[in-house]
């Protein structure tokens, strides 16, 4: 079995290099830390909150924030000041240190995800050879922080929220990770920079039937991972007050808030980098990246400007879709939440890996993209994908039809007689 040799036919800027820990690298990292992680990303998050309030207001035929500054543009700053100067309360019976550490854990997890995203050519904070595994690993820390937040508060609503959150996050992590496996298979590497480069050669990965299915699964699982509606059971206001952050006030609540919006931004960046070709505006064309020549810095800067713009536009589209979903869909029921993850998404993503293997053999194995390879691959895998989706839904529908309506729901079962329930359960 021969793999496409990495770094053989790639241009100079795409080759993986070992990072020497010299002064330039240190300065670059410090700049990333100060400008990116302490400046730009929190700023983006602040204005995401403003954007969400505006968008939700439009959906509900309201105006939204319009008092502080023109169009309410200074509202995030006012909110931040309010959060900082509020009193910081810790419940008397709370576990003090764990209560303190929990929001920090959640925030750190959200921040660390951003460290491997390739925004443009040469604009990835760090290019790890196993960046995708790193990304999954650091994002799996946040359930721990959420659990500790709920546990340390000594409040039953917090505890309920924490248990819901952990169950949901652990369940949806499985399809989330499985849906990135096709990408790794096609790119032959775990590095996000290499994944971006492969998309210059083979078109955006979303433009293939298995890629599209994986993309949809990733979108759903991502929405669940960041606790957004319709998956916001862990903080369902109408049922359990605010879930795991009920007992948090002041800036510590602010940290949870920041972490949530930051992870929305991070998963949007992830989906863009993995499936939508990062900063390339047109699929199958290496347009801005191919302009870069080795000896002119100006070309690099220009191409990077275009790519960052396109990248941010794609990310904003994702964020808008998440706001849109939140403004339109009601909350999902808790048993359906688990059913959907384990009975639909997980089988779909496992079968999708096999179909991705077919796509790899037909289109990517030759090492270069040809039109007829692509068309044939598309036809065959599209058939397989449609068949798979139909099959999974059919099996689930048959399985559900065998169970009487509402028999899995205890409160309904109470008013029925025992005999019918007994039959229904069988």
């Amino acid at each position, binding site marked *: 079995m021969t793999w496409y040799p990495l770094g053989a036919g790639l241009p100079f800027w795409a080759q993986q290099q070992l990072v020497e820990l010299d002064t330039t690298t240190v300065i670059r990292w410090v700049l990333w830390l100060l400008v990116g992680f302490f400046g730009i990303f929190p700023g983006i998050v602040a204005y995401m909150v403003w954007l969400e309030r505006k968008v939700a207001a439009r959906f509900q035929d309201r105006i939204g924030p319009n008092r502080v500054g023109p169009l309410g543009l200074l509202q995030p700053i006012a909110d931040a000041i309010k959060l900082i100067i509020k009193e910081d309360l810790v419940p008397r019976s709370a576990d003090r240190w764990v209560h303190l550490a929990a929001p920090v854990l959640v925030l750190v997890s959200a921040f660390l995800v951003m460290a491997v995203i390739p925004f443009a050519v040469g604009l990835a904070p760090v290019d790890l050879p*196993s960046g995708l595994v790193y990304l999954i690993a650091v994002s799996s820390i946040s359930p721990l922080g959420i659990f500790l937040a709920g546990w340390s508060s000594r409040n039953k609503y917090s505890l309920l929220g924490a248990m819901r959150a952990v169950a949901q996050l652990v369940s949806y992590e499985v399809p989330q990770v499985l849906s990135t496996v096709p990408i790794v298979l096609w790119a032959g590497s775990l590095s996000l920079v290499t994944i971006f480069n492969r998309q210059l050669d083979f078109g955006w990965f979303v433009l293939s039937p298995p890629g599209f299915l994986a993309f949809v699964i990733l979108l759903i699982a991502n929405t669940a991972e960041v606790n957004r509606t319709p998956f916001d059971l862990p903080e369902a206001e109408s049922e359990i007050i605010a879930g795991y952050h009920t007992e948090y006030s002041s800036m510590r609540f602010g940290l949870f808030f920041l972490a949530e919006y930051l992870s929305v931004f991070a998963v949007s960046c992830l989906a863009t980098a993995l499936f939508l070709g990062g900063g390339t505006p047109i699929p199958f064309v290496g347009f801005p990246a191919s302009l870069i020549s080795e000896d002119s810095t100006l070309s690099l800067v220009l191409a990077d400007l275009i790519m960052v713009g396109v990248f941010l536009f794609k990310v904003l589209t994702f964020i808008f879709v998440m706001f849109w979903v939140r403004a339109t869909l009601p909350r999902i029921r808790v048993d359906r939440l688990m059913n959907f993850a384990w009975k639909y998404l997980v089988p779909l993503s496992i079968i999708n890996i096999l179909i991705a293997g077919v796509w790899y053999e037909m289109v990517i194995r030759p090492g270069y993209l040809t039109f007829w390879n692509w068309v044939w691959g598309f036809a065959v895998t599209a058939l397989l994908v449609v068949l798979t989706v139909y099959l999974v839904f059919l099996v689930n529908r048959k399985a559900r039809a065998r169970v009487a309506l509402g028999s899995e729901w205890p409160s309904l079962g*109470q008013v029925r007689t025992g005999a019918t329930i*007994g039959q229904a359960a069988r």
Partner: protein
Amino acid sequence: MVQFLFLVIAALGLLTALGTVLARNLVHAALFLVAFFFTIACQFVLLEAEFLAALQVLVYIGAVAIILMFGIMLTRNIQGDDTTIVSAAWKIPALAAGLFVFGILVFGINNAVAPAGHSPWSESNMRPSIATDAGSSKATAVRREAVNNMARTVGNELMTRYVVGFEVAGLLLTVALVGAIALAHREEAEPDARSRGEQPARRASASPQPQAAGPSLVSSGTSPPR
């Protein structure tokens, strides 16, 4: 520099391991354990094995620690207040087991085989550079490949040299999974058995009117509406 970092991380690891053993609160002990897992991940990074470090965080902190927390919440007092005192009778066997594992580790590490053409690694305190391309030995090329593309190297090794251990571990996990399902599944049959007129004793004692409420169903605590 690397040695200093190693010493700091190792000391932190020992401290957190002690904290795990000595903490009175179960959740605190689990938290110390998480910190200990994290120091192990740091050690992997020092060994230029960032893929293993990421896997360490993913598997041990992201999965094992979470399952541990779930276990604590579902089996014990939910706030984990029970003090975790091991009865004195268990102290001697535990000590013996710990010493046994320690002895095996010391024996194994001291008898590790160095790759061909290298001096025993326990006598060397410098890692050869992998950045040079020309004039490097075959072992350096292997190491460069392993560092730059660790996921593939680990996968190849697991599927060739260590395949027996890998399969045995997989089998063990499958057995554990099936066992867990078998244990958890026993509760499911109860409503079915009840509808046939059998009253399990445990539920009946919890119900306020055990005999009169024949078809009192899934939630046995409340009386049926009449």
